[in-house]
Structures are given as C-alpha cells and as structure tokens.
C-alpha cells in the first residue's frame, strides 16, 4: 500500500531560528533535575462532516542533573599571619549552579600545587590543617561555630564560604604556605548527611531513560592546575604569608608634679612633693599583637615609692583611667630592687596600656 507523506512547505512562513544561545538564566531558573516534561497534543478533525476529537500519545522525558559549580578564592592576596599564630584561615566561596540541591565534599592539600597558580614561593606547611564551612554565613571563620566539614544541601544559585584553617609554626625563617581546596560534587537530599560523590551516568547502561542522569558540566577552574572540565570537581588556591615578625612597641614616660605642700596652683619639685610617673605602652603595628609585655621601672634615686600607688589600665585622665590595677593586668612594687613591675601581657595592634605610680621627693 502506497502512502502519501505530506510535507507542509509553506513558502515565506518559515521563521529564521537563531535564538537559544542567548537564553541566559540562573541555576534557580533552570528546571529542577527530576522534573518530568510531558507533551500531549489535543486534536480535532472531521470525517464526512462529523467532528471528532482525540489526543496524541504522550511523550515525556525526565530532566537530568547538570552538575555545575564554581570555587573561587574569596580574599585579596595572601592571608597575613604571624609566627605561632593559631586558627589562621583562608577564605573560599563555592557557588552551586546545578539545577538541583547538592552536597559538596571538601579536601585541603598543601602539596602538589603547581607553580604559577599563586605568586611567591611556598616554604612551609601549616599544622593542624582543617576545613570548615561558614555555617552561620557571616563570611568570617568563627571557631567552635563553623564546624561543618562538608557543604550540606546547597540550593541552586546558593553560595557559601569555606575556610581552610591551620596553625603557623614558630620557625623564624618561614615565609609563605600555599593551600589548595578541592570541592567535589556529591548527592544531596538528606539534610545533615554527607552525600557520596556523584558519578556521571553512563548512557549505555540500561534504564537510563526516565531516570535522573548525572551530567557533569563544570569547567576547568584552575587552568594550569589539576582540574579538568566535566570532572565534577573544582579547585581553588590561597596563600598564607608571614607578614609581621616584630611590632613597633614604644613606652613613653612622663612625670607630673601633683603637689608640693606649698603652692597648690602651680606645684614645684620641692622636697616632699608628690610626683606621678606615667608610662604609655603603645603598639603601633596594627596587624599584630605584642604578647608577654612586662614593664620594669626602677624608682628614681632621691625619691620614695608611694605604697599602693601603682595603677595599670586603659589610658585616661592624667594617666590611667582608673587609679587601680584593672584586669587582666597585674603588677607590684618590688622592695629588694626598689622597682615597680607591671605585667601587661598583650598589647593589641594599635592599642595602648597606661602604667602610673607616684613617688615623694626626699
């Protein structure tokens, strides 16, 4: 039986088809993986003047998972650290551009980082290296709060910070440490449970129809580095640099005659006069604290320490804001050496601690 095939070639009505590529949209606007798209046409026709209706068969397919995400270093330059610093961190940002919610597995490495990805030369490793997710989403690492070690259930278009955290050795000669973050796409679906790494579906396997296939669409995140396109992984790199080896700690000492027993308005340095000495310990290095600061000051000859007059604390008034030794500072008058000893401890970057005591002129 010969059948006629109808081709509807209507001249002039064919629209030029040139769009599609310009269809930019975000992952959240993408159809979610697992959605079934079904198509059915309804048809009316007439046979011998009798109108009838029918439906076409239904054609459907399941939208597959287009795994894509980005990993970037989310900080400018290297993290400036000090020798022996603990909890030093570098920041990264992971953005899920998959058409579905996913987990991401995280690994940190200090070796195998190809030269040229970062400026400078790596010459030490951090100890106690860990990876934490910015669970409270405030953009900074909070010890004890940001404790998750994998990214859980990141929605399409969702971003989250990841921190590589470690301790800096005390070795005096070290300069720079490089770290690498590896991010691996993993299956989501269970909150609080770490998914397993996704594997792209082999279409030759049976039952690939009407199931959610995994298609890797991620790019090469590092060019020179180990990442390749469509491997379900992303890499980013960052450095720690020893920025400060010393701090600019200065102590400025001044004397003020409080009273001479004669002239109340304008006291002179007469025998019997009370003199207040004031020392301001200032750390002019904003980026680093000075630790273990102790000030020892001998009582000048021909003067006598006024018992109980030692005050340590925030600067203010004529020297210290309060006339006492305020926590966390401690200090005392040492009788054998005839000196005051002020245990200041830490002076933070840009901070000043005041120490004052009084003497009488013999």
């Amino acid at each position, binding site marked *: 039986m010969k059948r006629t095939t109808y081709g*509807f070639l209507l001249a002039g009505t064919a629209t030029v088809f040139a769009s599609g590529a310009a269809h930019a949209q975000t992952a959240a606007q993408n159809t979610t993986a697992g959605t079934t798209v079904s198509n059915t046409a309804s048809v009316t026709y007439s046979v011998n003047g009798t*109108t009838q209706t029918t439906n076409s068969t239904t054609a459907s397919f399941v939208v597959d998972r*287009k795994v894509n995400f980005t990993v970037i270093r989310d900080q400018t330059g290297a993290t400036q650290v000090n020798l022996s610093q603990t909890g030093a961190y570098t920041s990264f940002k992971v953005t899920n551009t998959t058409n579905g919610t996913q987990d991401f597995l995280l690994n940190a490495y200090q070796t195998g980082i190809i030269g040229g990805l970062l400026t400078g030369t790596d010459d030490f490793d951090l100890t106690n290296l860990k990876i934490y997710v910015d669970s409270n989403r405030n953009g900074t690492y909070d010890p004890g709060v940001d404790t998750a070690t994998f990214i859980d259930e990141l929605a399409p278009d969702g971003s989250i910070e990841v921190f590589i955290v470690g301790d800096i050795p005390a070795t005096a000669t070290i300069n720079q440490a490089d770290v690498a973050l590896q991010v691996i796409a993993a299956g989501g679906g269970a909150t609080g449970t770490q998914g397993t790494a996704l594997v792209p579906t082999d279409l030759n396997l049976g039952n690939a129809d009407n199931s959610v296939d995994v298609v890797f669409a991620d790019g090469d995140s590092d060019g020179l580095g180990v990442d390749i396109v469509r491997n379900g992984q992303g890499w980013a790199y960052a450095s720690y640099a020893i920025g400060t080896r010393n701090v600019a700690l200065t102590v400025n000492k001044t004397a003020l005659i409080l009273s001479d027993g004669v002239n109340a308005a304008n006291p002179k340095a007469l025998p019997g006069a009370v003199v207040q000495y004031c020392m301001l310990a200032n750390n002019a290095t904003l980026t680093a604290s000075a630790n273990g600061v102790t000030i020892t000051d001998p009582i000048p000859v021909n003067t006598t320490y006024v018992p109980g007059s030692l005050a340590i604390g925030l600067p203010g008034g004529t020297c210290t804001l309060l006339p006492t030794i305020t926590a966390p500072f401690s200090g005392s008058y040492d009788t054998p050496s005839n000196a005051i000893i002020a245990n200041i401890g830490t002076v933070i970057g840009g901070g000043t601690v005041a120490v004052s005591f009084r003497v009488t002129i013999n």
Partner: protein
Amino acid sequence: MYLRSTAFWVMTGLLAAPAGAAGPLQVTAKVLTEQKTRAADGSVRVALVPARRVVPGDRVVFVLGYRNTGSQPIGNIVLDNPVPAAIAYRGPSQSSAAPDVSVDGKTYGPLATLRVRLADGATRAAAPDDVTSVRWRLANTVPAGAQGQLSFQAVLK
C-alpha cells in the same frame, strides 16, 4: 470510488489500529534532542535522538506524527499542543510547517503579530519565551492512509 474505499477499509482493518484508539486519526508525540558527536576530522555532527539525556539549556524537538488509519479522508485537522511548563518555544523545525502560536491560549497567529499585556496595562511584542501553546491547522484534507509530521523546536528551561 466506493470499491476503492472498501478496499482501504479492509486493509486498515487487517493492519489493526492500536487497541483502544477511538478514531481513525492516530497522533503520536515524540521528543527528540540534539546529540552532538565530534568526528575524527574535528567536525561536529548533530543528530536528533530520543530525549534520554536532557539538561537545562538543551535543544529539544517536539514531534507530532499523524496518520489517517481510516477509510475516509479527514479534514479540518487542528492539532493543539500546549507548550510544557519547563519548555521555552523557539520556532518551527526546518522540515515542518510553521504553527500558529499563542501567548494567552486564546489568540493564535504568527508570533510577530502577537503582543503580551504587562502588569501596568501596556503591551509589548511577544517573544518566543512567551509562547504557551502552538497550533497547526491543516488546510488540506488528509486522504485515507496518508501521514505527515509536524514539529517545533524548543529549549529546556
């Protein structure tokens, strides 16, 4: 003429249209997707294959195949195909007649003639993304035993 129709009727009876099919016009829907394969010389071949692996951004082709399994010519055929929700209409396929399209399910026509009403009451020219339904109205009668194919191109959102 009468004899010929009868002969057709007998033959179609033997071929047996699918069970449960009500009328003489059988319409089959298919979804195809573009599969690109790179040949050894570097050229890329695009083949249309059944939509097994489709991810957002992929081109898909919706095909309606129709066949007159009856003995009488069929006229006034109208195929109305609502565009599925996750699909953005792009245009007719090269081999297919251009359908009339609609952005509201009521007014059909060439895309260039349609306008979309905005929230503030103004209107703008309709774009392919606005199409919610496509419709083919076959001008010609389809004789007994004849078949044809209509299709449109789209993108998975």
